[in-house]
């Protein structure tokens, strides 16, 4: 007899699919009941760590700070019937959840890949050819500027204001993110070249300051509204936008996911996503493991990913393919594009995603870069501050541990 709590947040409607699975599980295991607590994302980010630290956390939670919270995760290995199934199918992601060990703590509810969308209809209207496979960021910048100029579109290019999003292009332009010892080294020439580009684009109007300039710190801002409203020619975001665009834009224009543009070092986006993890403090680790195991089964995950148009974080399904519940050709194309991008993702990107304190780096990057773009700092000052910020926070974190 166990009552399990799962803390969950929604980007769209995914709690419904999860609830369906939970209902199924409860039917099979009448002695275990599971309650799904849907919270605002803010709670996952800000409250959950405090609750976990205080020992008041849930049994299972859907988290995005994959490595940062790993000290609270349960190692389910002893409870799993078939740990190998997990290692086989979730191998690379397990590392994200436990960078320093080989615990099995959870699985990805969603794998995301960052990458750009373009408004293909605008290109057609403007009569400008879309840069093809292997085009660089500069090629795209030139093309979208042309389109925007012809059609009087206010924002040629927009990037999510997110450290995670810009890390892809940064790695593409040669950023290493870590030094040879594996310690974080955010600022290097690659990153600088990406940052400089971004900075220049904001100055020359390729990008609008609204996104990067209008909030402070690490606040996330997206341009999905503007993109959906055909105000943006190219929008650098990620795979998670697909269901939304399918819903909001529909066939109003052709929104097209394109492969990650290239830099000097690679043509890569960032992997990412949210994981469902089991918590160490749970009173019912066995039942938790049982539930997790159930959810992780291929047929259940397939149902879940399919319903929500999520790129599977399950290697078997990734190769086998998931039957996505959409008949929108644009959505289908986008899903394909992103799924195909996974193999091409740079190992640095994987390492960065797997690094427990990556959010410290992301935040430093984005907040300081934002300040530079609005002119509060020069780029050089911003780079210095980034380094300092990361150092300071990591030092604070080291204290007492």
């Amino acid at each position, binding site marked *: 007899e166990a009552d399990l709590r799962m803390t969950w947040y929604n980007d*769209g409607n995914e709690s419904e699919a999860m609830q369906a699975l939970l209902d199924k599980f409860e039917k099979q295991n009448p002695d275990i009941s599971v309650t799904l607590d849907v919270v605002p994302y803010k709670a996952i980010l800000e409250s959950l760590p405090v609750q976990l630290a205080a020992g008041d956390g849930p049994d299972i939670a859907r988290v995005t700070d994959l490595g940062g919270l790993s000290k609270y995760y349960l190692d389910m290995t002893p409870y799993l019937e078939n740990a190998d199934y997990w290692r086989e199918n979730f191998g690379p992601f397990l590392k994200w959840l436990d960078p320093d060990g080989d615990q099995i703590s959870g699985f990805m509810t969603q794998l995301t890949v960052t990458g750009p969308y373009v408004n293909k209809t605008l290109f057609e209207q403007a009569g400008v050819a879309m840069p093809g496979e292997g085009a660089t960021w500069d090629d795209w910048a030139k093309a979208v500027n042309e389109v925007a100029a012809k059609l009087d579109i206010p924002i040629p290019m927009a990037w999510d204001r997110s450290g995670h999003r810009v890390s892809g292009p940064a790695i593409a332009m040669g950023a290493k993110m870590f030094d040879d010892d594996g310690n974080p080294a955010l600022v290097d020439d690659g990153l600088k070249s990406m940052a400089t580009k971004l900075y220049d684009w904001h100055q020359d109007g390729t990008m609008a300051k609204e996104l990067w300039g209008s909030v402070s710190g690490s606040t996330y801002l997206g341009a999905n509204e503007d993109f959906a409203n055909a105000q943006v020619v190219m929008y650098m975001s990620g795979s998670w936008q697909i269901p939304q665009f399918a819903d909001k834009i529909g066939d109003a224009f052709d929104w097209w996911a394109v492969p990650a543009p290239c830099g000097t070092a690679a043509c890569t986006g960032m992997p990412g996503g949210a994981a469902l993890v089991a918590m160490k403090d749970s009173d019912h680790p066995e039942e938790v493991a049982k539930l997790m195991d159930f959810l992780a089964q291929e047929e259940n995950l397939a149902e879940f990913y399919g319903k929500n148009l999520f790129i599977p974080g399950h290697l078997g399904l990734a190769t086998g393919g998931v039957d996505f519940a959409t008949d929108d050709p644009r959505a289908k194309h986008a899903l394909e594009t992103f799924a195909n991008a996974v193999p091409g993702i740079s190992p640095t990107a994987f390492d960065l995603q797997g690094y427990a304190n990556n959010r410290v780096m992301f935040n430093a990057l984005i907040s300081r870069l934002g300040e530079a773009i609005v002119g509060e700092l020069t780029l050089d000052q911003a780079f210095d501050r980034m380094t300092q910020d990361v150092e300071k926070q990591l030092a604070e974190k080291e204290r007492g541990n």
Partner: protein
Amino acid sequence: MADATAHRRTIGTLLTARRGRGKLHWTDIFTYLYLAFGILLMFGPVVWLVLSSFKTPAGLLEFPPTLLPLGQISAEVEGYDKPLPIFRATLEDGTEMELAQVRRIGIVSQMVDPANPDQTYKVPISNRTPVREFRIASENYTEPLRKFNFGGYLWNSIIVTVVATAITLLINSMAAYGLSIYEFKGRNAIMIFVIGTLMIPITVILVPVYLVVTSLDMVNSLWAVILPGAATPTGVFLLRQYMLTLPRDLIEAARMDRASEWQIYWRVVLPLALPAIAVLAIFSIMWRWNDFLWPLIVLNRSEVYTLQLGLNAFQGELDVQWHYILAMTVVTLIPVVVVFGFLQRFITTGIASSGMK
């Protein structure tokens, strides 16, 4: 120069305006202009919010925005399964027609005449505009409300608001009574203390309070939301200032009438402090109902969610769904407006006479 003095005089008259004597001076006109502008500025945004909350996501994105929520008309056309959206299209020859769109291919839209389904047209998408009518997107409300246990959250919110307000009113009025009616050792110290804590924004002691709540084992119970804010310095301050204005004779009369101190409190002072209590009640209800940051931290189980948490739960990591946000904002506004409607006469007379000086 003459202008300047005239101007000065009139500003003078405006600023000292006293009940006029029949004649309509232009300061009166200015007054009403100011008031009209005031209505626009104070009410306008809220009206705009309410109107916007009934718009579809597409309607929200539109620029320039329309005043009223509009929806595109669609029509059943013979030979097509789904209703087709209607556009006003300008054909190549310059004629305008209302056509239904079958599909859009690239920048060209394929359309039919609903009256004559066999006739199809090809129209560049720049030559058509959607035909719309007034339509309320009630799904902005029903959708998010459907997604969670609205009744349960509402109930929790009501419990929290009512119980917390009751406790707040009770203990604050008791404290204010003690501080205003009696002279005793330490009264000034306590008063300074109360005023001092008036200055502390709760945001900065969130974590320490959380630790206290944890050690009391109240996490995930409504008490965790109810109790911490119950002893508001503002409330004590407000009520005390008001009670100080009550005539002492009344208290002594009650003592002569053999009332116990507790009876004096609840049968004499409490009813007389009603205006101030109403004001505090309004503030308390408002605080509790709108409270978000604190419940977010101490409540993480859906059975104890308050409405604010529930309504915000659809705010994901990556998506700002304005249509839901606006609609849910309106939902949370409703009770406040209702309370305001009931108690506004207390607010408008209450604070004025509650000695907030």
